Structure formats: structure tokens, C-alpha cells
């Protein structure tokens, strides 16, 4: 067999190398991980889905909007952070779309961001009847993913009165439910304390059903 010129030989080895590595790192490896993940961590691997009344009601890791069909926030639900994850051209109040994850990317001195912050602040203050100066930062900023399932404990506390009034529930009962759904830092120091909005709202709906509200 006559020997190929070196440079062709190297490219031939390169082609074969890519094929072999694709089979191993792009075939065997991900399938192995997927197989073990589906066998051992089925719930997590499929998106940590939560059910209500026997039907899938969302993922505990993704925010969802609690609005009426026009996009107005529903007073009987805790509201997530403002979201930029929306299909291009969609109306406001329809964020939390996992097909469009992402952030606003507005700079710290951008007048457009200042305007957004001010209008979120005014809306939040009016909706929850709290002074504008007391509105928590996470309620007036958009998250990194547009899918943030959490709000800060302060943000949740500020919404308690409004939710309790809308559901005709005692404030104390709603407050203790918020406390139960407040996650502290992992191991005491990783991350930040937070409240999962979807899980809290599902618990509220369950509570309202049992108490006839």
C-alpha cells in the first residue's frame, strides 16, 4: 500500500477521530447519563413538574404568570418577579415563557431601565398598598432567566395582606403559609432565602378549597 502524503494522512486521522469522539462523547456518554437520570432521578430529570388536582400545573423551577386573560395580575395569587421571557411582540403580563429565556440586558444607567423600575415600583405599591420606598428590589427588577420561580421573603410578606383580602382568609393564616414555603439558605449559607411562588399559590388554592373560600 502506497503511503499517503502526511498532510492528507493527518486529515484522515482527524476525520476518523471526530467520528470516534462523536460516538463516545456525543452518543454513549449522554445516553448513559440520560438512562441513569431517568431511572434514578425521574422527577428532577423531567423538569420537577408539580400537579394539582391530578393534572400537571407547571414546573416548580419555572415561574408562571398569575394574570387574567388581559394580563392584569390576579389579586388572589402571589405574583412573581417581572419577566422578560416573552415571545417578541407579545403584550405585557405574558412573560415566563420558557421558549424565550433571557434577561433585559439593560445597563445600570440606561434611562429605559430606570423607567421600567419606576413603573414596576408604582404598580407594585398601588397593587399591594405599600409605600413605594418599601418596595423590595426583586419586585422591580427582571431576573437573569426571565423564569425566576422565586421571590424574596420580603416581597412575599408585602403581598400577604392583598392576597388574604382577595381570598377572605385571615392574614395570619396566609402569613404562616408563606413561612412554611420560605426556603432558607442551603446548609445555612449557600444562596439566599426565597419563596417559591407556584408552590405557595398551589398551597393557597388547596387551602381555599378546604376552607370553602
Amino acid at each position, binding site marked *: 500500500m502506497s503511503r499517503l502524503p502526511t*498532510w492528507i494522512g*493527518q*486529515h484522515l*486521522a*482527524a476525520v*476518523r*477521530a471526530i467520528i*470516534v*469522539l*462523536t460516538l*463516545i*462523547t456525543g452518543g454513549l456518554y*449522554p445516553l448513559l*447519563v*440520560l438512562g441513569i437520570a431517568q431511572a*434514578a*432521578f425521574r422527577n*428532577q*430529570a423531567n*423538569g420537577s413538574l408539580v400537579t394539582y388536582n391530578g393534572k*400537571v*400545573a*407547571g414546573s416548580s423551577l*419555572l415561574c*408562571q404568570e398569575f394574570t387574567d386573560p388581559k394580563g392584569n395580575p390576579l389579586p388572589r395569587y402571589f405574583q412573581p*418577579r417581572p419577566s422578560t421571557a416573552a415571545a417578541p411582540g407579545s403584550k405585557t403580563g405574558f412573560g*415566563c415563557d*420558557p*421558549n*424565550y*429565556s433571557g*434577561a433585559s*440586558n*439593560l*445597563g*445600570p*444607567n440606561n*434611562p429605559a431601565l*430606570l423607567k421600567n*423600575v419606576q413603573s414596576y*415600583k408604582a404598580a407594585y405599591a398601588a397593587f399591594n398598598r405599600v409605600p413605594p420606598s418599601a418596595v423590595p*428590589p*426583586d419586585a*422591580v*427588577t427582571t*431576573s*437573569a*432567566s426571565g*423564569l*425566576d*420561580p*422565586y*421571590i*424574596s421573603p420580603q416581597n412575599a410578606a408585602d403581598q400577604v395582606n392583598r392576597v388574604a383580602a382577595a381570598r377572605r382568609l385571615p392574614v395570619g393564616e396566609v402569613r404562616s403559609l408563606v413561612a412554611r414555603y420560605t426556603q432558607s439558605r*442551603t446548609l445555612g*449559607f*449557600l*444562596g*439566599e432565602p426565597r419563596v417559591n411562588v407556584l408552590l405557595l399559590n*398551589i398551597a393557597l388554592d388547596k387551602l381555599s378549597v378546604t376552607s370553602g373560600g
Partner: protein
Amino acid sequence: MSGSVAGFLQAGLLVLALAVCHRPLGDYIARVVTGDRDWRAEKAIYRMMGVDPRADQRWSVYLRSMLAFSAISVLAVYLFERIQGHLFLSNGMPGVTPDLAWNTAASFTTNTNWQNYSGETTMGYLTQMSGLAVQNFASAAVGIAIAIALVRGFARSRTDRLGNFWVDLTRITVRVLLPLSVIGALILVAGGAVDNFTATHVIHTLTGSSQNMVGGPVASQEVIKEMGNNGGGFYNANSAHPFENPNPFTNWFEIFLILVIPFSLCRTFGRMVGDNRQGYAILSVMVTIWVASAALVSFFENSHAGTALRAAGAAMEGKNVAFGIPGSSLFAASTTVTSTGAVNSFHDSYTPFGGAVLIFNMMMGEVTPGGVGAGLYGILMLAVITVFVGGLMVGRTPEYIGKKIRPAEMKYAALYVLATPALVLIFSGLALAFRVPRESILNPGPHGLTEIMYAYTSMANNNGSAFAGLATNTTWYNVTGGIVMLLSRFAPMIFVLALGGSLAKQQTVPVSVGTMPTHKPLFVGMVIGVILLIVGLTYFPALALGPFAEGLH
């Protein structure tokens, strides 16, 4: 517990974990690349590749093998993207447009993972899993291989051989990256990262409206994306997406993955040159700058400067509640001092000086600790320059690890240091000179200039993070970006291997009284000085017009 104490503990636990792991992992990598026994599986792989694993290559042959492999890689990824509409598991995605496919192919082959697309609406599962993620392994292995070849230049004497590229590529993939990835991926899945083949479908939310539910083989790609310092997100929101990075523990773990191999390679270096102290000196340089930069980013983000952030009351724009400012700042600093570029928060919305530290991190040339492999060979080039500067001061022939640094070696090191900044500044300048690339800017004022500078700094340092307001899925940025990423990845590698070849030929000179010790704190300080001086002199005017102008306003 107060937030700042928790932040310190989070960083402290990270330092502890890295301190515990870097030695065994570094030693293991050294054994992997120096051992002379092949695994049975590896022998099969060499047969399928058609290469002779016992052939020791000259630097030029090593280089040509690497370039051939990378050229075919670009081609393979490009083809994968173009024909994905005809492949299975494509989640209904059509083929990617030519300019975007070119940019993405260049981006993943060069370990940059700059992304001008949203994963969830552009790339099918098969393209991500068997096209892009393969390069997450391969490009990381290539980076480590080149670093190992340079280290062999220091370790060997009177030879023109630097090892075998195919063997290094295979062993690093099979024995290091793959086993660690399997373990890491399962830890991420246990924490809540998704891993499935379910196509995007609609579910009904609690209020009865509909929501798209996304899926994909995410965890297997997420782990190597961090550990290989690639950084390309499965979804547009990258590691800010709860399906990639669901909770504070996975967030901490991903930062650990980002840093563990680059820091461990210092140990590999010390081990291979037979003097662990040399590895620790290099490690000290890296750790010092990483810690300083993480502290600075956290400080600036806590200050929440900027009119809009002050109005909000905290720098929470573009950050997730679960990670908060400490978990976001630590991630941001770590992803930019390594060439990872994954993000769990969006850098464009960082405070002016917080963002400036992130861009500065990349401008240091990704050496603190830098990308996997690329960080080690980069800092060794700077160490060569440091001994040269030190040698000039005392008037002796500079030496490093028993090798003389002569004009030839200095030329390679100098060319290495100049290549990347030249690409950054020339292409940023070009983008600013034309109307079309300027129209991609999102934020007004100096911040807009920073967006463009950040883009080319990130691409030319093979980082891949972005001031993502800049709309870069345009022909201009796709084409120039691909060129910049390829040149800035492979041109420096030529100089690295050439230096390795020239060092390997030298006989090792014994340590004498005239030898400057390169394992002492004085040398560590000098390397830090050289790094800062080079960045300062090269980029200061540009930084002054962008982030400094905004921050001091």
C-alpha cells in the same frame, strides 16, 4: 446569618473544596499524560483513528495534527447545524443559517462558546448533544494537550519530541473528562437539572393559561460546559436557567467545576517538571487574582451604583433571587477569570465598575486560572516574560525551570502576548468605525462602547460571556466573530508549541547562585505585576472611554 457572612462562607467552602481536590486531580492528570500503558478501550480508539500511539511527535507535527483535528471539527459542527432539519431528535428546528452556523462552529471548536443564538429556538437536541457538546469535550482536551506539550518542553531535554497529540486528546477525554462528567452530571440532575428527550410541549398553568415546557439532554452538557470551561448554554439564559442550574447548591457546584481543572493543572505542571514548588508559585498567582477579582465584583455589586439600580434599591437586575448578589458575583468573577463564559446573571446589567472588573478579568488573557490548559500555557508564557524582565534587571541570562530564555524563546512569548490584544483592539475599532455593527448596540452612552469591547475581548480570549444587549446575530458579528475566535485560539497555540519545541531541545541547566528562584513570593509578585502591567498598558485607554467613563460620571 447576615448575607455577607453567608457570602464569605460560600466562597470559603469553595476555596476549601478546591484546596482538597487540586492535588489528587493534578497528580492524576500528570499520571494520565505521562503513563506508557494504554487502556484496552484506548487501543481500540487508536485503531479506529488509524494512528500509532507510540509515535512521539515533533512540535510541528503535533501542531499540524491539532490543526487538522480542529479544522475538521469546525467542518463537522457546521454540517451538523446546516442539516439538522433532516436529522432525528431535532425538536422541529430547521437548519441553521450559514453565517450563524459558521460562527457557532468556530465558537465551539475554539472553546469560546460565544452564542449568537437561543438554544431553545435554534438548536435541536441532536445538534446540541452530538455536535456542540462533543466540542465541549474535544476543545477542552485540545487545550489541556497543548499545555501538556509545553510542559514537556520544560521537562524534557535534548529532544525534538513533544508527545503524541492523538494520545493526549484521547487519554484526557477518556480518563479525565468523561468519568468526571458522568459523576458531575448525575449530581446536577439530582439537584434538579433536566435530562430528557421530551420535545417542547404546552402545559396548562395553575390559572389555566398555557406555557411552553422545554426539555433536552441538558445535565450531560451542563457539566462539561462548566468543567471544560466552554460555557455555551443549552438554553438562552445559560446557567441562569433553572433547568441548567436549579438551586444554590448546584450554583456553588458549577463554580467549583469551572475552577477545578485549571487550578489542578498547576499541580500537574509542578509534578511533570519535578518541582512541585514551581506549580504552587503559578497557583499562587492565579488564586491571588481570582480572589481579588471575586472580592471586587462582590463589592461593586453590593454598592448598586447606577441610576436605575439605585432606584431599584439593589443590583438585582439580571440576577436570580436564589443566587442573590454573592452567588452571582462569585460566578461572574469565576467565569471570566477562566475562559468559561457561562453566566448565571447578566453582565450587561452589572454596575459600571462590577462590569469593568469582568472585562478586565478577560483582558488579563485568561490566565488566572484561565481556560482548561489554555490558562496554564498562557501563564507559563507570562512567566517566561517575567524571568526575562527579571534577568534584564540583574543582567544575567534569564532561566525558567532549568531552561535558558534566549531571543528565540522571547520572540515566541512576545508574539503570544501581542496576538490577542491586537485582535481585540483592531476588531473593536472596525466595529465602531462602521454604521451597521454600531446599530447592534442596546445601551446608550459609554455603556454601548463597553458592549462592543466586551464582545471582542470575550471572543478573542475564547471566553464566550457577553454584554448580551449587543444584538450580535448579524452577518457582521457572525463573520468577524468566527474569524477572531479562530485566530485568537490557534495563532497563540502555534507560538506555544514552537516555544515548547525550542525548550525541549535545550539541555537542562543546573541551578546556580545566579539563577533567579521562581518558586518564591518575590517571583509570584513579579508575575502578577507583569500581568497587570501588560493589561494596563494595552487596554487602559479603551477602558477609560467605556466602563470608567460610565462609572465615574
